[in-house]
């Protein structure tokens, strides 16, 4: 019997994973490897793109080994990735000219403040759908070219290539200096601040604002559609899809219709609402982004509520505070107390994203008394994710004009039972986890599989979706209101502290 699998490569903020799926969307093998985080200065976050490519090679080989599968049994590979993180490399050597600047990095705050003094902010919002904040890639590229005049010259001479991580990985997968394809997709390009949401092409006005030479930018392709064939680390697999991780998660839920929504809890948290082929603009702090595009079809758009720091805060508790030894221990610690003891954590490490978009805000822990223990802090850490989710869901409800009746979730943090119960409690609606928590990878596999005809159509994929767990709200409304007011006050303080 000939086996046929689809592979998803998920290049995330802290690790890279390769997962193989069968025709029913069930996981066959998973290989994962972390890469190093560099924090050279306050607010700076960098990755070594060469290390990331090396980990990608290893996890692809290991996943194939674990499944005892040959490359010829893999019908397609879908690439999904941490978005906005960007790298520039030399097209003739394939060597990055600097460390990748990560989406969480806030070094471009001053640059953006300068750009914001012109009418650029309005142009950017109208054309790219994005607020003028440090999150997105375009300003990171400008900062890099400004940081070294020699780089700017080489970029002008056409010697350098720019890419988000999908582009970097795909260029290397398809041969690198020996014929690697230099491409991105509409979902990733929509996060650069350089793409026009309507034309789905690089926008000359935006390129002028950020003074970026078009020659270093990749070609923008559809999300679903073969862009090339792998050469390395195993040859002959069609690369069937490129898709940003949050859009991949929406796709993995089978949320192809307008009005469908999901929330992913990973390093950051991301609520996405499919708005169909309509480019919706939020009046409550959500951003407009491309959900996906099939070759030959109009693009599908989404409104997004991004939270910069959810699981990342738990990792910080492990790595920087040594409060816990593993991320899952935060639940054990937090479960030892019935409430936060008056303590709140606002994780504005990269400023505050949706719905506030306050790049200057800084993180804080408030409400400390002698009563507060490490368990209370652990609980406040988890609650920070729940309350941030409440803020973006409120924004989405306000935009949509009617409240959501349930929240569909995925991501690594959904293994935290206590957190999922907290989210249900503060939203006052049921929280539902589908049977495949790795929805990001599943979405990339779906997109790649559709591209090569492994699955006939989108309806076939929707039948794979099943409820795996459900948490029902059980919080006293008076307590919810009291704690929400305290959280909102803490957020105000974090913003005020940043503008002192």
């Amino acid at each position, binding site marked *: 019997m000939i086996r046929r699998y689809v592979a998803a490569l998920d290049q995330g903020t802290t690790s890279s994973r390769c997962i193989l799926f069968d025709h029913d969307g069930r996981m066959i093998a998973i290989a994962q490897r972390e890469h190093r985080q560099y924090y050279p200065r306050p607010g700076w976050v960098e990755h070594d793109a060469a290390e990331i490519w090396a980990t990608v090679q290893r996890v692809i080989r290991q996943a194939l080994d674990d499944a005892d599968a040959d490359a010829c049994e893999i019908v397609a590979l879908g690439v999904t990735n941490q978005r906005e993180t960007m790298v520039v490399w030399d097209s003739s050597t394939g060597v990055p000219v600097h460390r990748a600047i990560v989406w969480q990095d806030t070094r471009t705050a001053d640059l953006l403040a300068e750009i914001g003094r012109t009418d650029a902010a309005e142009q950017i919002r109208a054309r790219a759908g994005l607020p003028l904040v440090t999150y997105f890639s375009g300003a990171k590229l400008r900062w890099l070219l400004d940081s070294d005049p020699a780089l700017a010259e080489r970029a002008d001479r056409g010697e350098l290539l720019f890419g988000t991580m999908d582009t970097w990985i795909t260029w290397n997968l398809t041969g690198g200096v020996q014929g690697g394809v230099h491409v991105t997709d509409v979902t990733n390009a929509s996060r650069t601040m350089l793409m026009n949401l309507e034309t789905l092409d690089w926008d000359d006005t935006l390129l002028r604002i950020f003074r970026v030479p078009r020659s270093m930018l990749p070609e923008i392709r559809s999300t679903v559609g073969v862009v090339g064939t792998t050469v390395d680390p195993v040859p002959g697999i069609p690369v069937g899809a490129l898709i940003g991780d949050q859009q991949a998660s929406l796709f993995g839920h089978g949320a192809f219709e307008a009005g469908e929504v999901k929330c992913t809890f990973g390093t950051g948290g991301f609520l996405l609402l499919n708005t169909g082929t309509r480019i919706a603009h939020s009046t409550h702090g959500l951003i407009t982004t491309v959900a996906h595009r099939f070759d030959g079809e109009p693009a599908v758009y989404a409104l997004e509520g991004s939270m910069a720091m959810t699981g990342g805060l738990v990792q910080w508790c492990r790595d920087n505070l040594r409060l816990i030894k593993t991320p899952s221990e935060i639940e054990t610690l937090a479960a030892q107390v019935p409430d936060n003891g008056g303590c709140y954590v606002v994780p504005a490490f990269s400023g505050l994203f949706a719905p506030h978009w306050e790049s200057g805000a800084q993180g804080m822990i408030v409400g400390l008394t002698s009563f507060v223990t490490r368990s209370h802090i652990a609980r406040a850490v988890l609650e920070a994710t729940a309350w941030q989710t409440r803020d973006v869901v409120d924004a989405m409800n306000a935009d949509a004009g009617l409240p959501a009746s349930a929240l569909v979730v995925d991501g690594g943090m959904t293994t935290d*039972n206590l957190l999922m119960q907290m989210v249900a409690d503060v939203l006052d609606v049921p929280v539902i986890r589908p*049977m495949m928590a790795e929805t990001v990878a599943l979405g990339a596999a779906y997109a790649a599989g559709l591209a090569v005809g492994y699955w006939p159509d989108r309806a076939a994929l929707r039948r794979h979706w099943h409820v795996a767990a459900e948490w029902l709200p059980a919080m006293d409304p008076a307590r919810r209101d009291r704690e929400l007011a305290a959280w909102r006050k803490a957020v105000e303080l974090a913003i005020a502290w940043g503008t002192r």
Partner: protein
Amino acid sequence: MPGSIQSIERAAAILRLLAESDDPMGLLQISAALDLAKGTTHGLLSTLTDVGFVEQAHAAGPYRLSDDMAGLGRNRLHANELRSRALNWTDALAGRSGEAAKVAVFRDGQAVIAHHVFRVDLASRRRSAQTLTTGTVVPLHATALGKVLLAFEPAAARSIVGRELPSLTYRTITDRVALYRELAAVRDGGWAAAVDESGPDVADIAAPVRDRGGYVVAVVGIEGAKDRICDERGRPRPTLIAHVVRAGRDISRELGHGRGL
């Protein structure tokens, strides 16, 4: 060379004695076996109890080695950690089998559900009629999950010594000899089943989850209506057994089993 410390030698002798004994031992038994004064023995035992190496089922009762002592040097895998490592493979098991998948651990004398994935329910697609059972307890002797723990986890096996095996249905194994015979079969086969034993018309199948060193740290299984889990003769379906055993291997592999020490 410093002289050896007498009280440590004596404490070590007590631990060896308790480790070799199948049954808990009383104070007089211990002091007689080691030829120690009763007062000295009591002092040593209460210190060993304080540090958690020895325990008593009830005050003034006989002494035995604690579960901590049995697991000394092993990093105990916490239920929350286990859930995060098992998540993907439990999802895959629930997807393949179409039944509810559960992971359980032996904690504080009981089999506790650490993770639960709902059964595929085609009738209610976007919401579920099922309730999460994470954190609840299942009977050790009347479920496949429990039997795997009894078969492979010494602390679990010891927890039922001298205890009555309550009857939950007419099929529950309440006879100790019959249970031990069944546990031997579980060890030989590498999986367990329970049909109509914890409740009418309920069946489950389970297989062990091992850590890097091969020690059984948890159990994974599926649970559902008897007519779906079993064939028409009431025996667990071989394809479902294969799915469960495979999930056990996959999670074990995730924990490092078979990847070298």
